[in-house]
């Protein structure tokens, strides 16, 4: 899927929220869903287990309308975080224009974060994509939890963000940092337009 179609004058951005289980990916989407006027959003598709865990994926289409003469659409996806759903993750990752890595700020979840990040890298490689060429931003979620339980954004940057991509502290449940993250990934993705290399 091409990001920009000049002939039909369409821009379609596929953004995948990636990260370990229970890090807050679906919460991000829910928050965005709540902020998008009804006329501009499609039906949010959520395939969840009984305990509200993402079983397959969440999908939220957003229609941004005509921008510079281009019909612009965003498609936000989440992947299931649990280790055993890797096939699904790989599938969802296919054709992604950008990735938001939603990390869990809790100190005890650090290993899961690292593991998930490695998993992202290897899944992208399976699609023949070098993670260094894909727009990625980091979001350190659950920053609202008590200080003693979490790592600071700086610590998380040290641990996870060795490529130095934009990173954001967030409290997805209350919306803090959600749109900042979305905006950052959108900018990275859309700037590739200027480079003239549709993903």
């Amino acid at each position: 899927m091409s990001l920009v179609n000049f002939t039909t004058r369409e821009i379609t951005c596929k953004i995948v929220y990636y990260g370990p289980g229970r890090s807050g990916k679906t919460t991000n989407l829910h928050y965005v869903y709540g902020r998008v006027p009804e006329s501009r959003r499609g039906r949010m598709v959520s395939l969840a287990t009984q305990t509200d865990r993402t079983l397959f994926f969440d999908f939220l289409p957003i229609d941004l309308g005509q921008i510079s003469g281009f019909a612009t659409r965003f498609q936000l996806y989440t992947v299931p975080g649990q280790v055993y759903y890797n096939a699904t993750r790989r599938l969802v990752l296919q054709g992604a224009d950008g990735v938001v890595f939603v990390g869990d700020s809790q100190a005890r979840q650090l290993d899961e974060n690292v593991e998930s990040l490695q998993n992202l890298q290897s899944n992208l490689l399976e699609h023949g994509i070098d993670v260094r060429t894909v727009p990625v931003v980091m979001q350190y979620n659950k920053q609202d939890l008590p200080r003693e339980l979490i790592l600071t954004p700086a610590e998380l940057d040290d641990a996870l963000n060795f490529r130095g991509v934009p990173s954001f502290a967030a409290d997805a449940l209350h919306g803090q940092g959600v749109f900042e993250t979305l905006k950052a990934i959108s900018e990275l993705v859309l700037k590739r337009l200027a480079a003239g290399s549709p993903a």
Partner: protein
Amino acid sequence: MTSTLNPKFTFETFVVGAANRLAVTAGRTVAENPGSAYNPLFIYSGSGLGKTHLLMAVGHSAKALAPQLNIEYLTLDEYVEAFHAAIAAGQGDAFRRRFQNVDALLVDDVQFLTNRKEMQAELLRLTEALQQAGHQIVLTSDRPPAEIADLDERLISRFSGGLVVDMGIPDYETRVAILRRKAEERGARFQPGVLETAAGVEFPNVRELMGALNRLVAFQAVNDAPLTAEAARQVLGVVEAGVTAASPTAASSTAASSTGDEFSQFLTDVTTTVGKAVEAWRARVAEAVLRWEGEGYRTARLEKLLDQDNPAAVDEAIAAYIHDVERLRALEAEVQALDPQAAGEKVFRDPERMAEAEAAAAKVRDGAAPPPAPSGAFPLDSYAAGASNDVALSAARAVIAAPGKKYNPLVLAGKSGLGKTHLLNAIGLELMKKKGAVVACLSTQAFVDELIAAIDGNRVDWWRARYRRATALLLDDIQLLAGKDRTQEELFNLFNHLMDGDRQLIFTAPAHPNTLQGLEERIVSRLEGGLVAEIGDPDRELRRTALERILTQQKLKAEPALLDYLADRPADSVRSLTGLVQRVADAAAAQDQPVSAGLAREILEGQPPAGSGGRRTTGLRTSGLVVSSAGGVRSREKMVWDWPSASDRLIEDLR
């Protein structure tokens, strides 16, 4: 009577968005080439979306590009009023003439044609007249033609025959642009976010949007502090959509005031990013792609530009592309005239294959060299007129005056040697004098031979095309078609094609077509469908005129006595007169004498030269002794043809 164009309503002041881009592009195209691009152009949209503005913009732009153009803008109501006034004043014809002479007619609000039968008829007539003359018509309505209640089917099809485009409700970005421009026009400045808030409301039309702007301007004027986005929302009574629809699991605890704008903010950011990303050149190229693709041209070359990171000389590339497209258009138009079938070829729509298109056009051009023209040896002036060919000649003159209109086809029937070929060629020569005329004039034999050669060379298509472009087809000796089935078939089709286009057809035949053997019924019936003008044996007057001409041609002195003598001799054709003159002339040359009546008599009647015995031919022949019965009276009407019998006259005298 006619409204003047509002100077404010130009393309420059028209805000273009996705919802009206097509209509504006079409409008611009029409303004650039009135009468040739989309005719009629029918624009429809809901009220207050810029129909009138666009219509006037077309008028302004066309006028600016070609100031000599006569452009009329008026609403349908004005048109109706003007028509009624003209009818009341007994000036109906003048009214029609006036509108038929405009180069571009812009009619607003044609939906009011509903229940106006007489105006529909009038407009239908006008549309037809304007279209035929290649003049532009642009119409606007609040609904598509087919949805105008009670509209004549013919008008619907006419209106739909050009281009029907609609203009939708402007999208968010367009609304912002409109508000910014209008605010600027009024010198009103707003804080960031105020106009965006107003634009966020989906007003059904631009007028209401202007109403919103007016309210904002008014509120800002009465308050000391500039209006904030929040205040604007209250002024306009905007209800927040996003917050109320928040999903149950998230954001329910979030304060609405701080987050309500998150999405708008995001949208603004994305818009900025995209705006920067889609560089201006890409927009220009994309626009060109859209436009030419819409017109049916391949745009691969332009699309290739978009694949590049930073192509050099984009504008030059676009200009070159347009240049090529224009050339293709010219070629296609040329080919269209020569061979409509060939014009549909894809190669004329692909600027990547210019060379092929040129070659294809050249091929058609070669193939469609003009068909054989009439011979210059038969001018109409030298055609001898007389009672025997009076009907044919007057028909010929009628045909020359109005080809294809009066007698079509015209069949000149008569025996051999009566001047059919002469008359045929003479008509052809006269028809050729008309502008743009392509007169095909040839013998049926040559026609058959050409077809055979075309079949042989597998070039029947262009052979057809060659004749199809003729504005008149003149075939001599149509009886030679007898038994030539294929030629009859081709002629049948050609006949129909030419008749459909009101082109003149003229044939010559030795007799009335229905007596000709070997012609298919469908050909005969078509030949009889026009006028069959029979040419009789030359009458004396005609013979005399013809003789005079023949003698003059042969540089012999045409003495009246000689003319009278020769003219009195029976002759069944003009051609035989030539033989007669030739015999006399040869003899005169042999005897080294001038050609005279006496000599002619000697030679033709076998009378020996003077002094050889004075033997006279017996019989009733009185040639040379009798004064011409016509006595120089040229008018048939003045001649007494039926003398009363002598006995009747005697009785009359005795009374």
